[in-house]
């Protein structure tokens, strides 16, 4: 009987937990090492760090293992862990120029200062299944690495920094400064300390998007790209690389580099407006943890879309976009419908039965006066 099942909650939960662990163990393969995930499934790790909003590759890999490959669940674990950590301080602001590049491209100009650097990308690989990977032997790996080493002889290392493509446009006065840039550093909103209110500042909007769920962000950006909006983005520059993290030295107050984080940065140039005098291109900006180009591009598109003075499309409506992007929130709420709702349903049943009774008394088409 239903009543008994409800009371058995404690035991059922314990057993369900064991069964879940068993699913991971029941195969005959070797246990997956966290380090293997970190090194070989690095894009998943990057995604988990980005959506979990914590730069911790080893913990992200652990979460990914524990969640059996569910990035939403893994990001949730990481985010929950993050919430337990005290805030030690804020890092100093940076410019994208300082990214130590492993990849940078521009779709706006054929030749850019510093050159296009394709870097590690799957863009131009054919999506054919590589059956050799079925037998991923150490010998094959070694052979590949040796060949790669030979190719590298005589190549020049990349410069430490590259100039920004959009600075060319900026110098020529072709680029409008993005709205909301006038906020000083002191005014930077911290979405982990305050809940969003609308209209949200640009810093709040960018933070929200940076930790958003990749699929959700892409979906909303795609609506804009496809036709429910028309910002017509051009990728001014897309960068992947390592950004130094600097803090103020607690004693001297001088900037002090404590490490670096892998990031993807996108700047999209959008259709021009003539809001202030002469027409100028406008800019959308995206930046996220790890190597996740589609997320950075989608973020930049939405950043620009939300600068629309009079929102007409869903992707231009700041409250609509920012309220629905967080994977941890949507995952939680979407799955909470699995919880018992007996009481509310009982309450609804009571209303429905009453309404049906009332409907029987009042024949369709007859006026309210007859409903006594």
């Amino acid at each position, binding site marked *: 009987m239903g009543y008994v099942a409800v009371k058995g909650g404690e035991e059922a939960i314990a057993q369900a937990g064991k069964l879940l662990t068993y699913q991971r163990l029941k195969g005959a393969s070797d246990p997956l090492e966290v380090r293997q995930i970190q090194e070989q499934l690095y894009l998943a790790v990057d995604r988990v760090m980005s959506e979990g909003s914590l730069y911790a590759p080893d913990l992200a890999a652990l979460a990914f293992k524990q969640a059996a490959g569910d990035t939403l669940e893994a990001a949730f674990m990481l985010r*929950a862990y993050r919430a337990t950590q005290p805030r030690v301080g804020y890092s100093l602001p940076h410019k994208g120029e300082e990214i130590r590049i492993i990849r940078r491209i521009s779709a706006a100009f054929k030749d850019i200062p510093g050159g296009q650097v394709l870097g590690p990308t799957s863009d131009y690989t054919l999506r054919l299944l590589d059956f050799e990977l079925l037998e991923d032997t150490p010998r094959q790996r070694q052979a590949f690495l040796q060949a790669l080493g030979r190719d590298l002889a005589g190549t020049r290392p990349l410069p430490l920094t590259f100039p920004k493509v959009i600075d060319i446009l900026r110098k020529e006065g072709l680029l409008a400064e993005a709205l909301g840039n006038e906020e000083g550093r002191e005014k930077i909103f911290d979405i982990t300390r305050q*809940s*969003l209110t609308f209209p949200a500042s640009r810093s709040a909007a960018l933070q929200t998007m940076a930790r958003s769920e990749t699929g959700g962000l892409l979906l909303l950006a795609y609506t804009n790209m496809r036709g429910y909006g028309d910002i017509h983005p051009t990728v001014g520059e897309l960068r992947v690389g390592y950004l130094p993290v600097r803090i103020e030295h607690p004693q001297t107050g001088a900037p002090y580099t404590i490490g670096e984080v892998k990031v993807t940065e996108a700047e999209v140039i959008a259709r021009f407006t003539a809001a202030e005098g002469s027409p100028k291109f406008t800019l959308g900006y995206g930046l996220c943890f790890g190597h996740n180009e589609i997320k950075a591009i989608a973020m930049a598109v939405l950043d620009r879309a939300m600068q629309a003075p009079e929102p007409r499309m869903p992707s231009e409506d700041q409250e609509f976009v920012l309220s629905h992007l967080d994977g941890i929130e949507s995952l*939680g709420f979407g799955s909470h419908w699995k919880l018992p709702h007996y009481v509310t349903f009982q309450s609804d049943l*009571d209303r429905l039965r009453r*309404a049906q009774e009332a409907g029987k008394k009042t024949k369709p088409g007859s006026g309210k006066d007859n*409903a006594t």
Partner: protein
Amino acid sequence: MRLNAWLQDHRRVKKSRDYNFAFINEAAKREIRRKILKAVAIPGYQVPFASPELPVARGWGTGGLQLTLSLIGPEDILKVIDQGCDGSVNAVNIKKFVGQVTGVSTTTDTRQATIIQTRHRIPEEAMTRDQILVLQVPFPEALRTVEPSEAETRRMHGEADYSQMWLYLYEDIVKYGEISIGARYPVTVNGRYIMDPSPIPRWDIPKLHLAETLFLFGAGREKRIYAIPPHTRVEPLEFEDEKFRVEDFPGQACQRCGSSATFLDEIIDEASGARTYLCSDTSHCDKILAQQEEKEVRSCK
């Protein structure tokens, strides 16, 4: 308890766990407590708060949990219910979590608890001034039904512009002969703010009115805290000629304890398909049953 003793106890508990006492770090707890004070000072007003993530999913009681965790001390006695039941999976899960990170003792007895966290019900037994009821809230905004934008609903609250809500209720009556809202029935608090009482049945709404107990509402995902302090007027929205009414179970009583004055769960019998009814508040049901048995034993003597 004396402060020193408390601190000692606190440290002992903390040492035995990998996380801070009551999980949330102290700075975040302090923020939540400040927001609770503000909520108590403005009954029915939704106070935004940071709402950090917990290891429990958003939508699964994280708002209530944050309130509980920020208020709980080692000497507290906790009760957690879901749908009125202490043994329901989500209640068990939450109780286990709070137990793990605080080591407090728990109870199923409404009268014994100092803090009760609940989802979708208010216990049948009247609570006292020494207790706090923490309600988990999915939708803190009562006006969301009529207005999707948060910026707009905040304006409406600010200006006490509730005409859309009243119109909605009126149209409901025209369409269905009565208001169709089942649970989550909107109330006016202290004659000012329209408030979502969380998805409790209408049965529980009168318990909020001029109560002895402090009611705290936490919406984790939506990042809002609000409160009904003791002795506050809480009035369900109604018209002069269309009065608010609670659910009724005509001619039905709990099959277990025989109560006809409690909120009942409708149970469908697997074999016969027949409907029977049982108390939604299981610990109250147990208590009534125990009292009856005691009476029987006494009368036998």
